[in-house]
């Protein structure tokens, strides 16, 4: 957990005062909507179909129980009793009133939560591995560097009016849970041959109308040069990124139009001028940030405690444990994923009651810490294995123990046409129906890891391009239709999915997915071969045949 100091708290409070003044000037007519829109976006306030939507930042997906309780309070006091966790580790509220927003922000500021730059043409939440700091095999905790970047990018005077939004992600593990390759800047933390910490810097990833996988422009940037190198990239983008067409304004387009070599050379030229300047990070500065991250003092606990041994006879507990519990770097501990994908419910939503309950469980079983993942699930990062049976019972009581993590019913979906003014089609009902078709968790377990991603429009907030199965809502003659892709991946082997055929109507999507799964079960080489690997091995054709044979 990172502890905010006086400086961090002062900045958040000054921001709240500023926004309060801006809202006042908007509601008095002193500011027009045209002038106000960018200001409210810079505080995460969108206008959606029914109401304003308020996006709150959860930096690199880490929350304290106190903070989670305050998020529950905001849901209750200012919204309709629930919140939605997003594909960028943030939380969204859908029914916020503009006039009450400054108060909501003040309530959040008290526990060090803000909404700065969660929207607008600026630098957004720096996301990371939700298992940072606790997963075996990690090089070092990427959240230290995420926090360094968060501070550097917050209210940066030069980069607050970019051509378009800008997203960072950092991973420090061979298996990338942060999807860095689909970000504007993706950073892979690793050590060089001298054992020094640095980053492979990838630029120009992104989905939407023109999806791209990020390209490496420098295989190793030393940790001390991270900020100056990022500043060089940002300055090149701010100066030369297109501003004539919002669909061509992301850095991925600039990289594509210049070519990677030329882009990298521009960055290098700029960087050489500033690398030894004020942005050079010395060990003291990094140490200062690191020192404000606190880590639990783990007890020496057995890997197979009595409580766990006894609970092993319970098939429901075992099913959950095998599905949602992951190894921890400290012996006797585990990482527990909390599925927010119950059968028949909107993916990624949690009620205020659930948030409060989880905060209590975090206090009791996870040193008061909760994580948010980009797959729209939560996690308790420090659970003693002896506490798993008790934790499971408590989670189950509040509907947070669905044993479908990483399975076909663990769907990632954007809010879609039910909420979003940009959408062409609904996504949540599609997700709900799919969870009902695959409600049998044992069957889902037999199918194995399979990521379905659903987006209600081409903006791809559901990351459908990189789903093992991707579903994209489109409009045809006023009706909802869906394009289906397969074979996408968001991890270190990131790849864009391939379209299997013409779009299918709303009523047929679940049938199509069932057909695809049937094809997979018939074609897989072994029960261990994952769906996405079968697609890789055989290509799209066998699936296309199966789906469109009768359509």
């Amino acid at each position, binding site marked *: 957990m990172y502890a905010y100091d006086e400086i961090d708290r002062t900045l958040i409070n000054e921001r709240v005062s500023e926004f309060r003044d801006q809202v006042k000037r908007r509601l008095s007519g002193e500011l027009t909507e045209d002038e106000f829109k960018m200001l409210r976006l810079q505080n995460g306030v969108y206008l959606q179909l*029914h109401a304003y939507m308020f996006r709150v930042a959860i930096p690199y997906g880490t929350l304290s129980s106190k903070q989670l309780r305050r998020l529950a309070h905001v849901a209750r006091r200012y919204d309709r009793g*629930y919140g939605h966790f997003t594909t960028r580790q943030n939380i969204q509220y859908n029914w916020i009133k503009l*006039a009450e927003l400054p108060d909501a922000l003040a309530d959040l500021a008290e526990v060090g939560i803000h909404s700065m730059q969660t929207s607008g043409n600026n630098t957004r939440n720096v996301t990371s591995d939700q298992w940072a700091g606790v997963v075996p095999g990690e090089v070092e905790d990427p959240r230290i560097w995420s926090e360094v970047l968060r501070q550097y990018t917050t209210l940066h005077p030069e980069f607050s009016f970019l051509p378009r939004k800008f997203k960072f992600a950092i991973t420090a593990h061979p298996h990338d849970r942060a999807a860095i390759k689909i970000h504007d800047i993706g950073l892979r933390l690793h050590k060089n041959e001298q054992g020094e910490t640095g980053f492979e810097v990838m630029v120009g990833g992104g989905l939407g109308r023109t999806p791209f996988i990020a390209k490496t422009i420098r295989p190793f940037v030393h940790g001390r040069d991270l900020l100056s190198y990022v500043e060089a990239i940002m300055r090149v983008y701010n100066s030369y990124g297109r501003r004539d067409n919002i669909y061509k304004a992301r850095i991925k387009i600039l990289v594509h139009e210049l070519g990677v070599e030329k882009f990298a050379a521009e960055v290098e030229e700029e960087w050489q001028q500033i690398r030894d300047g004020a942005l050079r990070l010395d060990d003291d500065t990094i140490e200062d940030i690191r020192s404000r991250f606190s880590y639990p003092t783990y007890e020496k606990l057995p890997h197979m405690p009595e409580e766990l041994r006894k609970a092993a006879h319970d098939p429901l507990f075992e099913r959950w444990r095998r599905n949602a519990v992951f190894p921890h770097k400290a012996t006797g501990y585990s990482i527990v994923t909390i599925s927010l994908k119950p059968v028949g419910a909107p993916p990624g939503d949690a009620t205020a009651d659930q948030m409060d309950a989880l905060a209590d469980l975090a206090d009791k079983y996870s040193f008061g810490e909760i994580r948010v993942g980009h797959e729209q699930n939560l996690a308790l990062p420090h659970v003693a294995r002896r506490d798993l049976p008790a934790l499971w019972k408590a989670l189950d009581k509040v509907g947070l123990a*669905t044993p479908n993590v990483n399975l076909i019913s663990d769907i990632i979906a954007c809010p879609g046409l039910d909420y979003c003014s940009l959408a062409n*089609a609904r996504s949540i009902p599609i997700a709900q129906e799919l969870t009902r078709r695959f409600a049998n968790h044992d069957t889902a377990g037999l199918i194995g890891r399979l990521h379905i991603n659903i987006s209600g429009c081409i903006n791809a907030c559901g990351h459908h391009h990189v789903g093992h199965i991707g579903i994209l809502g489109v*409009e045809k003659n*006023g009706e909802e239709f869906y394009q289906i892709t397969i074979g996408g991946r968001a991890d270190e082997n990131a790849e864009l999915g391939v379209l299997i055929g013409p779009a299918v109507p709303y009523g047929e999507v679940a049938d199509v997915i069932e057909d695809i799964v049937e094809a997979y079960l018939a074609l897989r080489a072994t029960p261990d071969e994952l769906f996405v690997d079968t697609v890789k091995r055989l290509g799209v054709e066998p699936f296309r045949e199966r789906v469109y044979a009768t359509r």
Partner: protein
Amino acid sequence: MTSPLEQKKIKITQPSVVTANRTWDGAVIYRTAAQQWSTELNDAAVVRGADEARALLAESVADDLGAVGAYIAPVEIGAGGAIAPGNLRETIRASGVTIPLLVQEPAQV
């Protein structure tokens, strides 16, 4: 349901209204013939041609203080003049999300 925010030209193929969101709380509102806003679709002024629509929109947009994001939306006129939303997007705006709001999965144990 291509976002009407992407409307460049105004093309009216059926009766339409002007709709927006109320500035202070974001509520869905419709422009009335009396140059006011109402949360009730049945109070909305109905236009039938592009010129009429353009004029109503221009007049609505001028109320920058009361409303945000005004645009032209299709409707259907029923028997007796009742106004109904003309596409799925407007149905969702008028009557809310198509999904249950608060769901908690029953405990498995």
